[in-house]
């Protein structure tokens, strides 16, 4: 795994962000008569033209249901759909493409682990260890499981800068810990968690480790075989693909042993009224007609990302983040929320005397799109004693000029509220 915040490679001269931006049609539009400055990629990323073209091609030329027909269209759609697993296998360096279960996003992937693996293999008193940085989607599924079977949810604390307190995390690990479930990158603060160390420490006490990669996958390449986690869930729509896509990667032997979580067509070998034989993974976990065209378009996004110079992109994103951070820190009355040692893609902030919602509205008038609120991470907000923050989050297409526009728009907020 490479972690952009942890190295200081200079931006490679061959990376042209303006050329990259031209691949994303929406970035050329205006909002309120101003050029769009899209700073909400952590909520959902914009799509390159190849993704839109893939959707068009599927529906206009190659669309039919999958895994059903003997006719050419169905066979072609099936091949295109299943090929996406191969693309993911290569992109994430997994051992076996059957280890990728398509989901509608990270949330569904985590719920699948909780309801299938959790209900089958955990029992009352077993502990699931998460961190104080988690998104609601890596909290609530475990609370639901707690209420169903009596597991214990344990939370490892963070410090005032938004770093995981490693010593406290280690102390909470024990033989009772059966699962460690952590974000690769915090959506609210941008903290990059040391997932390689977390996997090692979790395995050392015999726990399985799940990585919520919703925010991690878009910002850094991850080698799943090197990482050696047990589950890795990500969203296609944050990875420049369509909404309603994502995948849960799991080690094959774990997925094989897990019971299905939804029943229906496409996930069975044979059905009678007495007994059903389930299909093998991944079909076992993909009941019903899947999100065919969107999954194929997620494959187009993966192709697009695979062809990009990632070292240069990580260096570029780190540069824009550092530049934006320096501009924001120079604004009197602005408080950055989350100044972890290693960060990716997110600047959360509050302004003295101005509610984040008002910041969001005023920035929007200048075409600057940021998220305002609790970012589905209420416990994080509570920890920092704020009702919410304004959050500017970056994609690989973000630029230094956009950071200038953000800073100028924030100063306008302060003029209005002066």
């Amino acid at each position: 795994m490479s972690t952009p915040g942890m190295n200081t490679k200079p931006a490679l001269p061959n990376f042209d962000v303006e050329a990259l931006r031209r691949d994303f049609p929406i970035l050329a539009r205006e909002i309120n008569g101003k050029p769009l400055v899209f700073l909400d990629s952590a909520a959902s990323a914009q799509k390159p033209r190849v993704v839109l073209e893939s959707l068009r091609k599927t529906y206009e030329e190659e669309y039919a249901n999958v895994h059903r027909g003997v006719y050419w269209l169905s066979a072609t759609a099936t091949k295109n759909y299943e090929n996406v697993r191969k693309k993911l296998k290569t992109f994430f360096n997994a051992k076996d493409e059957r280890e990728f279960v398509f989901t509608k996003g990270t949330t569904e992937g985590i719920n699948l682990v909780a309801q299938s693996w959790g209900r089958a293999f955990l029992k009352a008193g077993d502990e699931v260890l998460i961190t104080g940085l988690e998104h609601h989607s890596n909290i609530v599924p475990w609370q639901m499981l707690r209420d169903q079977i009596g597991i214990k949810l344990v939370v490892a604390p963070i410090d005032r800068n938004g770093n995981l307190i490693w010593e406290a995390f280690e102390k909470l690990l024990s033989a009772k810990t059966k699962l460690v479930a952590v974000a690769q990158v915090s959506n609210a603060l941008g903290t990059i968690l040391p997932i390689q160390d977390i996997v090692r420490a979790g395995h050392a006490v015999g726990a399985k480790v799940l990585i919520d990669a919703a925010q991690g996958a878009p910002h850094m390449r991850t080698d799943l075989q090197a990482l050696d986690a047990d589950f890795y869930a990500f969203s296609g729509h944050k990875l420049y693909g369509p909404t309603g896509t994502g995948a849960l990667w799991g080690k094959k032997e774990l997925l094989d042993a897990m019971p299905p979580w939804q029943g229906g067509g496409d996930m069975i070998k044979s059905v009678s009224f007495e007994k059903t034989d389930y299909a093998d993974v991944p079909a076992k976990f993909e009941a019903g007609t899947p999100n065919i065209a969107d999954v194929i378009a997620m494959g187009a996004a993966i192709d697009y990302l695979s062809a990009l110079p990632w070292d240069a992109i990580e260096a570029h994103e780190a540069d824009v983040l550092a530049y934006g951070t320096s501009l924001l820190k120079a604004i009197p009355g602005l408080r950055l929320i989350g100044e972890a040692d290693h960060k990716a893609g997110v600047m959360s902030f509050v302004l003295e005397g101005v509610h984040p919602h008002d910041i969001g509205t005023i920035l929007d008038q200048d075409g600057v799109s940021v998220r305002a609120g609790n970012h589905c991470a209420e416990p994080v907000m509570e920890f920092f004693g704020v009702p919410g923050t304004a959050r500017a989050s970056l994609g690989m297409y973000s630029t230094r000029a956009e950071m200038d526009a953000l800073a100028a728009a924030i100063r306008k907020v302060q003029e209005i509220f002066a």
Partner: protein
Amino acid sequence: MSDLRDLYQEVILDHSKKPRNFGPLDHANHEAKGHNPLCGDRVTVFLDLDDAGMVKDVHFQGSGCAISMASASLMTELVKGKTVDDAKALFEQFHALVTGETDAPLTASADDMDRLEPLTGVREFPMRVKCATLAWHTFIAALDGKRDPVVTE
């Protein structure tokens, strides 16, 4: 910027920075909570309602954006001394005003509506209408003695 100045008028900024009737009300006999989970705004409305159905006193407490704080503050000033029926009629009128239903019949007093005029800026910002109405919905819930928190989003 002109739209923004319509939204963030001096009256709004003043009430949001110095909200009137802010804080708990010791002698309240009605109370309701409101929450907008989307933006995290929270408000509690406290009422002292007399036997004749008049709002003797009203306070609010909470945190939120400038629009929601100012709207709550203005509301407390306007509904104090009104009967339950008049207060509800004012709410209906206010709701029509901020959602842009201009053909709604005018039942509230022109003076009251003038006081609420600064909040009409939200009409151009549909995402913010909930901010302006949260305290009012909560006030109605307090009048009606609702136990469950009001949730808007």
